[in-house]
């Protein structure tokens, strides 16, 4: 990221203006993120602890939790996501206005975790694009706060003049998949202890 005031080229006045706008916009966005909590399991308990007085993510600009996707900036999926909820989180994500980000909180939301079975989505990145993955089972509030700070860092690296990045996600086809089927199969492969079980068992 270019620093403000740095001379980039002979055309630096325009570049500097863009940087100034980016700095102002990104700082505003990063420091007033409105989270949309999508809590489905024990991660939501840690999420609530993060929101409460001891850890208090209002210190990082998340003063207002948006319980409506239409007023939310960042979707925090806290907990496992069963296939039955896949169309729900997809619809919530689609209802959120741009710019929007997604934090996948915990092992289950990120990979399926211990639930390598018929009912569970193996990572919400097969359903919606994810910006920050927070590992842990569940992550401690410090972990989620670190993830939020990483998201701040990512937001501050974006540019308002880069139209590609903020474009609405294009689904692959009318089936609603955002990744090719081979990719979904690949990232849903078992790992850890569950490699000892076969699909047919």
């Amino acid at each position, binding site marked *: 990221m270019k620093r403000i005031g740095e001379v980039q080229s002979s055309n630096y006045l325009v570049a500097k203006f863009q940087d100034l706008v980016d700095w102002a916009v990104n700082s505003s966005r990063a420091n007033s993120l409105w989270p949309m909590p999508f809590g489905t399991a024990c991660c939501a308990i840690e999420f609530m602890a993060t929101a409460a007085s001891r850890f208090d993510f209002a210190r990082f600009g998340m003063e207002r939790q948006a319980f409506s996707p239409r007023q939310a900036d960042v979707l925090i999926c806290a907990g496992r996501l069963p296939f*039955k909820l*896949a*169309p729900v989180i997809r619809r919530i994500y689609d209802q959120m206005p741009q710019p929007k980000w997604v934090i996948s909180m915990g092992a289950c939301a990120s990979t399926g975790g211990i639930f390598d*079975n*018929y*009912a569970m989505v193996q990572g919400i990145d097969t359903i919606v694009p994810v910006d920050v993955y927070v590992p842990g089972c569940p992550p401690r509030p410090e972990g989620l706060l670190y993830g939020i700070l990483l998201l701040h860092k990512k937001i501050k690296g974006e540019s308002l003049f880069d139209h590609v990045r903020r474009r609405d996600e294009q689904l692959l086809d009318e*089936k*609603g998949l955002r990744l090719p089927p*081979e990719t979904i199969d690949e990232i849903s492969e078992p790992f850890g202890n569950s490699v000892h079980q076969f699909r047919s068992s």
Partner: protein
Amino acid sequence: MIPGAVREAVASDGETIVYVARERLLEAMRYLKDTPGQDYDYLVDVTAVEFRDRERPLEVVYFLRSLTRKADIRIKVELQPGAELAVDSVYSLWHGADWLEREVFDMFGVTFRGHPDLRRILMWETYAEGYPLRKNFPLRGRFSRAEQVRQALNANPEAHYSMEELSIAAAGGDLPEDMRERLRRGERGTIPEPPPSAA
């Protein structure tokens, strides 16, 4: 008790287990509920057990409790392998059996004859992979992960409302247009066709 209905009665760990013939189930249950001295007025749970041993029958298990007598009894019905997986619904005796029997239907595929609204309850209505708690069901499901994601995304999140619930909401006048359309059609969605490779 009713002659010919009880196949076997076992006392195990201080709990009474009674095996009842499938055809006589409703009769036996009505006896247990309505006879003075029995008074099993509370249906705690309905579940089913399938064993690894393919020769053993699948059992549908009913947990009954008498709130007045503080007594418990467990009723089992055996469904022989190869025979039709169906028993009579006890909904007419305990209305609490409604969702319990729906869950057994959803997970094991046991049909409850006379149930007023036998639909899936945990999995969504167009779930096409089978009955997850059966022993021949693979742990990760029958379809590939990509196919599972595709079918899940194509499922209608609102399809779990029954027609009765929809008509109640429509009477209030706050039903969205697509749900009203569904109520008019009276259908619950279609099962998407899996690709030939996934089957």
